[in-house]
């Protein structure tokens, strides 16, 4: 497309400052041609409508004392004349044009409007595919590289449901490797949760502030039996919203378990129906009081709770359930590290726990403490229900304040 055509079709937005250099580059014209075309267009526009254009000129010349060479950009023809008179051997060229009184700054990268439209249209066409080739600086907000791998992984699962475990594990591993950011987010999620709970639920305020933090971490590791997992959960209703966020984040990240759920929500194939049946079986047989079972099938159950109707008798009160729901995604998230589900088994989720904890340990010391607490709580599941919710509360209260020292208020004589 030629510049003339672009001007005629009003594809150049003069509301923004249009640099002549941009035009030169875009339309591969000489300066002279560009200048002439532009001047002609401006004249035409100014005569046809009341629109005034503001020009800026590049002025080059020697200062009056002859010492200094000077380049400057001046606004308007009046100033141009002034400067030309001021400088020796001066010359000027049109630098930019914009609609007078326009307040918008120059576009970072000059693009005629049609070009932008084309780009957008392309993006829309490729909505499902990788929006990789966006190079014009126009962000459409759908560019998420993580989704690429996600969709590809889904494809693999759908197309090859009979893949061996080894294969799936390998893909999972690869999956982990390819998206470190995801791993980070995974590690972050549980760590954050531990941060919320660990101090609050397991400690009481120590009068001496000196060794408090050290004690806290220690105690978190050593006193897991004092507060069961349920306590731990009960304590967290307040931050449930943040956990929900984490949940969402987990979804947005390449959480394969979540992906599975998403797929499950659209029953399309016989295999999925089979899976559903199996799940129902598991749910039917699952006793909620069986803590160990609950541990291993926790993620499964969540799915069932999510997908099935709410007729199932729920022994637990609404609050802990809420909390549990908020908590469980973390396990699910971790489970993805291990492998995908195969046709019949959900045991794979249990296997995934170890790597999750290991990842936690690696992530941060607090996460490690939390993991230790968690594992300890898991190892003593009988204490789960005894957990005093208040212990959590008091602990919640204690970290808020620490005991000050009297010496900090009074000076030594």
């Amino acid at each position, binding site marked *: 497309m030629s510049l003339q055509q672009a001007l005629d079709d009003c594809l150049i937005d003069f509301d923004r400052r249009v640099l002549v250099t941009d035009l030169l580059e875009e339309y591969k014209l000489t300066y002279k041609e560009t200048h002439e075309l532009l001047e002609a267009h401006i004249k035409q526009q100014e005569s046809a409508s009341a629109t005034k254009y503001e020009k800026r000129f590049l002025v080059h010349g020697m200062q009056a004392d002859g010492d200094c060479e000077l380049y400057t950009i001046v606004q308007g023809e009046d100033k141009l004349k002034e400067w030309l008179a001021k400088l020796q051997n001066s010359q000027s060229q049109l630098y930019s044009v914009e609609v007078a009184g326009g307040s918008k700054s120059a576009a970072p990268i000059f693009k005629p409007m049609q070009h932008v439209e084309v780009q957008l249209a392309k993006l829309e066409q490729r909505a499902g595919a990788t929006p990789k080739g966006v190079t014009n600086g126009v962000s459409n907000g759908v560019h998420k590289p993580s989704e690429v791998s996600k969709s590809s992984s889904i494809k693999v699962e759908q197309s090859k449901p009979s893949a061996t475990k080894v294969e799936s594990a390998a893909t999972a591993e690869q999956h982990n490797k390819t998206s470190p950011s995801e791993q980070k987010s995974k590690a972050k999620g549980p760590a954050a949760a531990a941060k919320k709970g660990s101090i609050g639920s397991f400690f009481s305020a120590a009068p*001496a502030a000196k060794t408090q933090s050290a004690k806290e971490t220690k105690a978190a590791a050593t006193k897991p039996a004092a507060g069961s997992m349920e306590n731990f959960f009960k304590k967290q209703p307040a931050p449930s919203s943040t956990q929900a966020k984490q949940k969402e984040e987990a979804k947005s990240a390449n959480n394969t378990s979540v992906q599975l759920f998403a797929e499950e929500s659209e029953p399309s194939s016989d295999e999925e129906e089979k899976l559903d049946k199996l799940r129902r079986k598991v749910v039917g047989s699952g006793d909620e009081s069986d803590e160990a079972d609950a541990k291993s099938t926790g993620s499964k159950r969540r799915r069932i709770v999510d997908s099935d109707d709410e007729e199932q008798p729920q022994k637990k009160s609404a609050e802990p359930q809420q909390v549990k729901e908020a908590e469980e995604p973390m396990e699910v998230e971790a489970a993805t590290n291990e492998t995908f589900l195969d046709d019949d088994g959900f045991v794979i989720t249990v296997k995934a726990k170890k790597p999750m904890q290991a990842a936690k340990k690696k992530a941060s010391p607090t996460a490690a403490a939390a993991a230790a607490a968690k594992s300890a709580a898991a190892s003593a599941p009988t204490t789960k229900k005894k957990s*005093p919710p*208040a212990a959590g*509360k*008091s602990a919640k209260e204690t970290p*808020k304040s620490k*005991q000050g020292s009297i010496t900090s208020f009074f000076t*030594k004589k």
Partner: protein
Amino acid sequence: MFEARLGQATTLKKILDAIKDLLNEGTFDCSDSGIQLQAMDNSHVSLVSLTLRSDGFDKFRCDRNLSMGMNLGSMAKILKCANNEDNVTMKAQDNADTVTIMFESANQEKVSDYEMKLMNLDQEHLGIPETEYSCVVRMPAMEFARICRDLAQFSESVVICCTKEGVKFSASGDVGTANIKLAQTGSVDKEEEAVTIDMQEPVTLTFACRYLNAFTKATPLSTQVQLSMCADVPLVVEYAIKDLGHIRYYLAPKIEDNET
């Protein structure tokens, strides 16, 4: 030479009981104006300041300023040997390493004296600045002791909130929450039962129950207790010792822990 005589041993007993839970040792600084003791508890969270004026003693003599470091537990043991109505006299020579505590029965028929070794204590003395407190609450000492005792069952911390409506003590813990509000008494027949609040600005501070309860050991010394509070300044719990002086406890408030 130092010699101080009190008409009733019970007063000194009460004083010792009021401080021995917080302090293991203390230095009694004796001068012609009286006896003073200032010491921090082991964890440096609270500070005890005891002042016994010389004119409150039946007999008081202090030729030279004297600092007597004492093990308060030992002193309390000795004082237990005295009857409440006994006269008690403390004596020490200049530069002596012992103090003699003598009990005389009311009828002078029984005289017992105990010599206790003094200690060289290297204790820090803190300069306590003059502070204008935003809230000064005066209330029955028994009531304060009761409140501290009750709230300690709920939490390790007590929040004291003083407004123009009154003073509120709150605690929240495993059991639940507890709130005790005391309004300023309108008119009371007995002055010792009055609750008065002198408030410039509302104040809310959090304190460790353990220390407050330790302070209430001084309750037998006075019918009224005075709580002086100001934001970000230690609480002052003051018990007046009638005609003798006062005992003041300073307690550092619990502060917001931003690190967590």
